[in-house]
């Protein structure tokens, strides 16, 4: 929405400020280095080269779209906006289908498969998950970024996120050091629940897509509700 007074302010300010220095040369220099490193990795370890390429694409995507997992949880509560939350749900829905297909293909070749044979992030769930998640949730809001967001913002030049990274290193080392304590207390009694083992592949995929879809619709309704009334 435009207003004539804002246009006037903008016009005045535009005269005052100097034109932006283009950083494009640095961009080309950096991209060349990245490509060279990619080729080097391609020669020695193809998997590393794929990870490198995908990592760079992830970095570009997250920076350009301003993707922030912290905001996807914080904004619905603080400002009633669920656009990021819904974007995360879309990502989850797409990867649900892709992951499901890949896991099914992989496991059909292994008749008596173990949890460790299944590709993906599958780990025990229990009180440890709850405590860890709450700690993570509090930490990400007060630090102003999650694990991915911290890396992205370091790339944008925020010195503060380097401090967050230092905190991460300290925290993970401490956590790994105390792992024995937590394992005896709660982790060893936590089960790993891999949902297709209980429901079968196709029902799991369909139900998960449905649940995510319902969440998406509810989030959209919540967002529209909050844009008409004043907070």
């Amino acid at each position, binding site marked *: *929405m*435009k*207003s004539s*007074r*804002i*246009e*006037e*302010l*903008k016009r*005045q*300010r*535009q005269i005052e*400020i*100097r034109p*932006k*220095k283009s*950083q494009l040369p640095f961009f080309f220099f950096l991209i060349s280095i990245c490509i060279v490193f990619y080729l080097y990795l391609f020669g020695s370890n193809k998997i590393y080269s794929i990870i490198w390429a995908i990592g760079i694409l992830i970095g570009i995507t997250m*920076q350009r779209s*301003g993707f*922030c997992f*912290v*905001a996807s949880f*914080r*904004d619905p509560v*603080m*400002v*009633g*906006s669920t*656009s990021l939350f819904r974007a995360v749900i879309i990502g989850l829905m797409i990867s649900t289908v892709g992951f499901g297909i890949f896991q099914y293909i992989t496991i059909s070749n292994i008749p008596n498969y173990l949890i460790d044979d299944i590709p993906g992030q599958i780990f025990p769930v229990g009180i440890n998950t709850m405590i860890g998640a709450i700690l993570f949730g509090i930490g990400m*809001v007060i*630090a*102003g*970024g999650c694990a991915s967001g911290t890396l992205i913002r370091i790339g*944008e*030049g*925020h010195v*503060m996120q380097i401090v967050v990274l230092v905190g991460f290193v300290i925290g993970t080392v401490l956590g790994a050091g105390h792992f024995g304590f937590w394992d005896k207390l709660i982790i060893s009694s936590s089960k790993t629940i891999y949902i297709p083992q209980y429901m079968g592949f196709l029902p799991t995929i369909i139900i998960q897509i449905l649940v995510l879809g319902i969440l998406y619709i509810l989030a959209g309704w919540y967002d529209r509700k*909050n*844009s008409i009334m*004043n*907070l």
Partner: protein
Amino acid sequence: MDNNFRYCLSAGYVKIIGGICMTEHRLDCMFEACPIPLLKAHKKLQTMKIGEILIMQTDHNCSIINVVEWAKKQGHYIDYIELGEGQWEIYIEKAK
């Protein structure tokens, strides 16, 4: 015009542009982490009158996205310009 002018002077920072009197509020959110610029803008706008303008500076690119989206949802006029490398100035006119 007289009453308007007197009100403008008493409200603080005044700018006369093209004969129209504008009351501006400024907010410096440089170097502040992600939710802070939006929250400060929200708090400041609550104390402003309709027609007043909030000018804020920020260097977080997520702020230009979420402040712009939030202000539009609340029905305010909003626009921004880039001051330099990774620094923006946002203009919000309270409309409701």
